[in-house]
């Protein structure tokens, strides 16, 4: 993805900062809005260059729609995984089979990789240990059978990716590219 123009990056930063201000103050008072807008402008002027690369392209309707759809999907995945870890903690025999597995991602942008790593870490049972290029090294609390029994490295990566990275990728690929 090539870099957006300075104006586009600046505008995007202002919009995001002002949105955060609206959420944190939760007020439509004119003075609050004016103060927030001015402060957003100042902070954006100082930080827009490191804040975003794609600029306003991030607000493309399709991306926003996928981001909104991603939220309940992700929360649901997180709750189910939390229950799974709760079961492992409470079970008297402590059924864990931990290991560090390798996954591959199709995401290309840095932001996309970051959000995939964060999503994986937030989902209980998996923590991203390191990312190197398109390889993810993930500590998994219960390594699934077909990943464990994979004969070749390729097969291992393919099976592990099917469990860990692919469920998130179909959304993140659209949102972040």
């Amino acid at each position, binding site marked *: 993805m090539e870099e957006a123009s300075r104006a586009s990056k600046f505008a995007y930063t202002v919009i995001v900062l002002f949105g*955060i201000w609206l*959420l*944190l*103050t*939760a*007020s439509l008072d004119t003075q609050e809005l004016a103060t927030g807008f001015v402060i957003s402008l100042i902070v954006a002027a100082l930080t827009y260059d490191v804040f975003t690369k794609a600029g306003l392209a991030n607000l493309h309707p399709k991306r926003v729609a996928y981001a909104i759809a991603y939220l309940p999907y992700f929360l649901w995945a*997180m*709750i189910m*995984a*939390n229950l799974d*870890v*709760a079961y*492992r*903690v*409470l079970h008297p025999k*402590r059924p*864990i*089979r*931990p*290991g*560090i*597995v*390798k996954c591959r991602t199709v995401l290309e942008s840095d932001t996309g990789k970051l959000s995939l*790593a*964060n*999503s994986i*870490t*937030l*989902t*209980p*049972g998996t*923590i*991203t*240990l*390191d990312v*190197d290029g398109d*390889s993810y*090294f993930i*500590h998994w*609390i219960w*390594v699934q059978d077909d*990943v*464990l029994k994979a004969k070749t490295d390729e097969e*291992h990566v393919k099976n592990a990716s099917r469990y860990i990275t692919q469920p998130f990728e179909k959304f993140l690929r659209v949102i972040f590219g």
Partner: protein
Amino acid sequence: MNALSALGEALVLIGTFFYFLSTLGLIRMPDVYNRMQTSTKSATLGSLGVVIGTGIWAVGNGMSWAWIVQTTAVAGFILLTNPISAHTLIRAAYKRGIPLWHGSVVDKYAEHLAEKSPDEEVSE
């Protein structure tokens, strides 16, 4: 508004339950990596439940709607920042050379590091 209060109280209760689970996991799990799994994760859902539950509870008690908006924003920031610290901690533990639990079944990261620099020790 009492239904909202009840919902908020229920969410806080669920969140507290997950805090309890993560503490229990801290005691029961065998090595640092698995303890991270339970402590950082259950704490996420625990924090979300408690924080958002507080917001809903406050609205149910007749306070302004701003509570829900603000607590949701706080929850969003927890979701954004929590995994970074979890990742940093577990990576630091691995780089420090803390061994995996003896029951661990696979370690692809060690193989990867060995491939990249065959003569260096992992712990360095």
